[in-house]
């Protein structure tokens, strides 16, 4: 493993941020990051990711606890910490009325670089992020991806030991996202910069990060390498899509007493599931032995970069399947699915289908795959990372935290 014997560039001790006396945005988290690591903060909106970064970057004073960055304490040596870090914020912080070159030059001066160092590094970094030919254009003429690349270059200009990237690819199209990932990887390797990035894209965390820290409600719920996290989930994930969502509650008890089912979650089908489901409907209907092996074509950003072998299984096992065919093709996908973690999933599917038949429940589709980080997230938090809804209480709480985090006084 990379970095095992290296020093800790970041040490976080019981870091806590409480807003307005009772809302714990960050709740006593402790972790270390080794030199050259890319650590990913994975969590839904309002989980405490940005609040943590703001504390580590000295923009926000912790309620209690502390951290050291590059050996400097965030409470007692804020200036030394600021010199050691680069921070690429979630929203752009470029001056769009200046050129790319001027934005970088401005930054270099703020960090006390002399003219030669500025000129040389700006030239080098603009080449690294492939913006040399646009350096003298006003930033307002840049695309979203170009702005993000310029910001990353700027974050590196003063040669920080640590780079914070807050949602580096939020809102970018898959192609641009991919190119940003490559840039991040390249500079991590070439410059040996330690990176903390926040994301709520599991495939981003999987692709980029040495280790992933899953954070929820301000607490660390898991911290390990992507492979180890996925290996924690023994077995396969089987996702069942029903014709009638009401069937979920009817079918669930039948599975709960099976010893080969490790976990059952009801998840809201996201666009990806819907897309998969639509693709499956367009495939020839399978009857009998329904095992289709093969690799899914890259459909969207979720699968890009994560070379997962997806085994698709389609199943229409009801007597009425032939009659239902037209309805299915034009039909709508179910809003909710059952997500099961089972031993040797391939062998269990016939059994699941049989159970469904016996219960008179119509399955629209069955999907079998290896656990992904999405499943890890689901298993440690009980929620789907993409699930925006959640309970009302969660929503209100998250909303409050985000409101407060935005209108927060930052330290003097």
């Amino acid at each position: 493993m990379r970095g095992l014997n290296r020093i800790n560039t970041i040490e976080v001790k019981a870091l806590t941020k409480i807003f307005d006396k009772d809302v714990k945005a960050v709740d006593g988290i402790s972790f270390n990051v080794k030199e050259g690591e890319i650590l990913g903060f994975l969590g839904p909106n309002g989980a405490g990711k940005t609040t943590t970064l703001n504390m580590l970057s000295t923009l926000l004073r912790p309620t209690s606890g502390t951290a050291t960055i590059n050996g400097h304490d965030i409470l007692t040596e804020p200036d030394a910490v600021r010199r050691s870090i680069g921070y690429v914020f979630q929203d752009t912080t470029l001056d769009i009325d200046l050129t790319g070159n001027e934005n970088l030059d401005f930054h270099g001066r703020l960090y006390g670089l002399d003219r030669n160092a500025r000129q040389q590094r700006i030239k080098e970094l603009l080449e690294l992020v492939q913006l040399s030919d646009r350096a003298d254009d006003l930033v307002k003429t840049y695309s979203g991806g170009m702005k993000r690349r310029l910001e990353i270059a700027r974050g590196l200009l003063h040669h920080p030991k640590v780079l914070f990237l807050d949602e580096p690819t939020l809102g970018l199209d898959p192609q641009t996202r991919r190119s940003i990932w490559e840039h991040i990887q390249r500079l991590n390797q070439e410059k040996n910069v330690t990176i903390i990035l926040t994301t709520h894209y599991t495939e981003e965390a999987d692709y980029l990060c040495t280790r992933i820290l899953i954070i929820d409600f301000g607490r660390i719920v898991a911290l390990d390498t992507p492979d180890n996290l996925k290996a924690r989930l023994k077995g396969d994930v089987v996702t069942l899509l029903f014709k009638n969502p009401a069937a979920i509650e009817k079918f669930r008890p039948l599975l709960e007493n099976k010893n080969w089912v490790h976990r059952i979650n009801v998840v809201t089908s996201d666009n990806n599931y819907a897309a998969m489901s639509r693709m499956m409907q367009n495939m020839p209907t399978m009857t009998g032995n329904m095992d289709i092996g093969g690799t899914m074509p890259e459909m969207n950003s979720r699968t890009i970069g994560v070379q997962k072998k997806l085994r698709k299984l389609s199943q229409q096992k009801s007597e009425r399947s032939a009659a239902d065919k037209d309805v299915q093709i034009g039909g709508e996908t179910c809003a909710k699915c059952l997500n099961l973690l089972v031993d040797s999933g391939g062998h269990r599917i016939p059994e699941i289908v049989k159970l469904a038949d016996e219960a008179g429940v119509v399955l629209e589709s069955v999907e079998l795959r290896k656990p992904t980080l999405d499943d890890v997230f689901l298993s440690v938090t009980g929620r789907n990372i993409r699930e925006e809804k959640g309970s009302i209480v969660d929503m209100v709480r998250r909303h409050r935290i985000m409101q407060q985090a935005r209108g927060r006084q930052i330290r003097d």
Partner: protein
Amino acid sequence: MVEPLSGQAIYVVLLRELKRYWRAKARVISSVAQSIFFLAIFGLGLGDFIGRVGSIGYLSYMAPGVIGMGLLFGSVFSGVSIIFDRQFGFMKEMLVAPVSRTSIIIGKIFGGATTATIQGIILMAVAGVMGAFVPSLTFLAGAFAAIGAMLLITAGFVGLGVAIGSTLNDFHAFQLLSTFVMWPMFMLSGVFFPIDMAPMPLQVAMLCDPMFYGVELLRWCLLGTGADLLGPLGWLISLAVVIAFDAFMVALGTYLFSRTQI
């Protein structure tokens, strides 16, 4: 807490103000044009009707006040523009840098004062072309003194803008600010009528307006005369008030900015 000042940081914030000012030509043109309208329409239109104010023509009397208007609006808005910096995120870039808040705000004040003064110099030239000033060596010396006075006057108002911008959070505040702070300040500054002619309550209000002293100072520089009310040492009183206002506003602006929100 005394924060260390960084010359480089002050310089770069100032440089940014200048670059942005230079590129925002529409803003420069519209504010210069506005002042020209005042001078042309009021100065020439009312001039014949009013005649002379003391020993000087009305256009000449008004000119320092109209220059003052450009200074006032230019400097307050340049201070208030930290609202935009915050809204559009650039503020974070400065706050996360290893420089003190004080350096940032000093740079902002220098920058705002410089751009507003450039505007003032343009207006001074325009007023001169329109015949507001008698060209002479004395006037030339006065004009240079006026440039120094402009820097002093605007510094305090950029500080005021920063103080307001650090306290208010949204764009709607601009309208209120303009109506309830800047226009009264402008109109009470003695730009249209001399304080000596005004009724007592208005005189009190004018004496409370920091811009009044700024305009008085400019009038002393450019015309060599001022309000009778302040006496022959009026320029010294005005200079003292302007400097005191600077000190207070820069301190207040820095303090309020240092506890600003992201």
